[in-house]
């Protein structure tokens, strides 16, 4: 899948040439070599990390909140990142001139998105300490999402067209605009988040019983919850910062994986979700390229187009989403 993804695009490159380029063998066409090494390879790697990261994020949240609807997009983490970016892009217009352009480096975009999602996550976390009912937490998360969307709307209303367009493009989501330096930052966050989630396997399995049972088995709930939330925050924040708010992957992939593996045990689910998240994201990205044409669709549209019917199909077939 990974190599097929690299091979496909507006310029179709034979898969044998892809392998040659990747292993530094001589490639006849230097343009192909350039496309593969500086565009397609980073994009495919980003797709893998984005897909896995968001899916693991969704899995952690679904178990933590004991709700099959939980996911980074639903709980307002992605909207938090959007707000951060919106404030940066459209707020920069307010500063005007040199300061505005200085603020708009790629790094500041990442930091703004990360901060935004972190703040929303912190707010949700603060609420979870006070509110015990997980359904209420979910609704509060949705409310945070609405509020941030509204603020973004207000900002957009007062922003000049140029900044507005820049923000809209970011919100479409993109896997392709990532430099090798950006990849490194994403990779560090991805590995950090993923290794933290390995430490949450045992607490997550205990939480399948419910918080009271988990506590009676000697689990430190507050500590586990904090680790899980920090892991989701790192993963969702980094991914959203680099690839934009990508819908449905975090929600749908854990459900698809549970259907395939028919288990709730996180020993199996964490690696399985990591893998299937990457595969599904690569498929979505390949579709977004519309092979053999010059068009590239926004990735966010594709994940929604693929994700929503899958969730509907699962619900119709099973009539109940188990987690």
């Amino acid at each position, binding site marked *: 899948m990974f190599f097929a993804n690299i091979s496909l695009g507006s310029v179709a490159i034979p898969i044998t040439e892809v392998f040659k380029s990747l292993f530094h063998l001589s490639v006849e066409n230097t343009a192909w070599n350039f496309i593969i090494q500086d565009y397609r390879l980073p994009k495919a790697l980003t797709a893998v990390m984005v897909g896995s990261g968001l899916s693991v994020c969704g899995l952690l949240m679904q178990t933590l909140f004991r709700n099959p609807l939980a996911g980074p997009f639903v709980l307002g983490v992605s909207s938090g990142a959007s707000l951060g970016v919106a404030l940066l892009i459209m707020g920069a217009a307010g500063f005007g001139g040199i300061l505005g352009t200085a603020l708009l480096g790629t790094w500041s975009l990442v930091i703004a998105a990360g901060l935004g999602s972190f703040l929303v996550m912190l707010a949700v976390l603060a609420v979870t300490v006070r509110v015990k009912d997980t359904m209420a937490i979910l609704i509060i998360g949705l409310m945070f999402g609405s509020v941030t969307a509204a603020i973004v709307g207000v900002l957009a209303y007062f922003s000049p067209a140029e900044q507005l367009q820049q923000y809209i493009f970011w919100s479409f989501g993109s896997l392709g605009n990532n430099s090798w330096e950006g990849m490194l930052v994403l990779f560090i966050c991805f590995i950090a988040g993923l290794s933290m989630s390995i430490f949450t396997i045992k607490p997550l*399995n205990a939480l399948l019983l419910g918080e009271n049972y988990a506590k009676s088995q*000697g689990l430190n709930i507050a500590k586990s919850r904090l680790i899980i939330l920090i892991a989701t925050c790192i993963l969702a924040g980094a991914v959203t910062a680099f690839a934009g708010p990508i819908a449905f992957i975090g929600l749908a992939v854990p459900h698809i994986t549970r259907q395939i593996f028919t288990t709730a045990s996180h020993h199996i689910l964490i690696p399985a979700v990591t893998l299937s998240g990457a595969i599904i994201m690569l498929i979505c990205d390949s579709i977004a390229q519309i092979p053999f044409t010059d068009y590239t669709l926004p990735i966010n549209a594709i994940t929604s187009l693929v994700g929503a019917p899958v969730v509907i199909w699962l619900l119709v077939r099973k009539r109940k989403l188990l987690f």
Partner: protein
Amino acid sequence: MPNQQDITLQTKNLSIGYFHKNGNHIVAKNINFFSNKSELIGLVGSNGIGKSTLLRTLCKVQNALSGEIFINNQNLKSYTYETLAETLSVVLTETPASKNMTVAELVALGRQPYTNWLGTITENDKTHITQALEATEMMSFKDRKCYELSDGQLQRALIARALAQDTPIIILDEPTTHLDLYHRASILKLLKNLTKTTGKTILFSTHEIDLAIQLCDKMLVMTPEECYFGDPCQLIEAGHFSKLFPKNLIDFDVEVGRFKIIN
């Protein structure tokens, strides 16, 4: 008074309730009881009398207002959640949050206090899991998903999980709700057998006063005025069961040992 060494669970002048800024809300006070190994203890009382509050206090989910709780002759305050998990296991009224796991997986979760950071199941853990499944007669259901089980089977699976936790004390909050008479009796009989075969102390709250009188070694009767503790026959003779409920509708018949509707 039996040998102090054999006492597994004991309370001294225990008051339970909730802490408030302006005056604590006392649910029940002067609770004194003790239990030995291999004893089945029934906790009865009307709705809202504080049975669940008492059980939560014993499990360290909430703190006692005053008085002391001793588990294996050690003050409950000296236990951490980790050490308590190896001494006391629970079966709550709530069902597992996720029912998308097999009975074997559910029971295996009971081994968590003993497993490593990843929760790896060792051969020793497997022996405990098998024993727990056999003791509760759930062996043939071990590969069933929890959502496929009946209420009675799920209750047995949850008891098996508590058994796998391998603790000298098990506390159950109303294990017989939602069950028909046959399954209520079979669950309580199972608990009775477990105390005899494993030497565990089992404390459970119930509304099945008739069944509890027949099966329990000791009973704790919570009435609005006082809490009485003793073996069922003594409690009947002292007339404590008739203090459980208001006397306008039902009364306890000391002769036959059960409640009757007043005509």
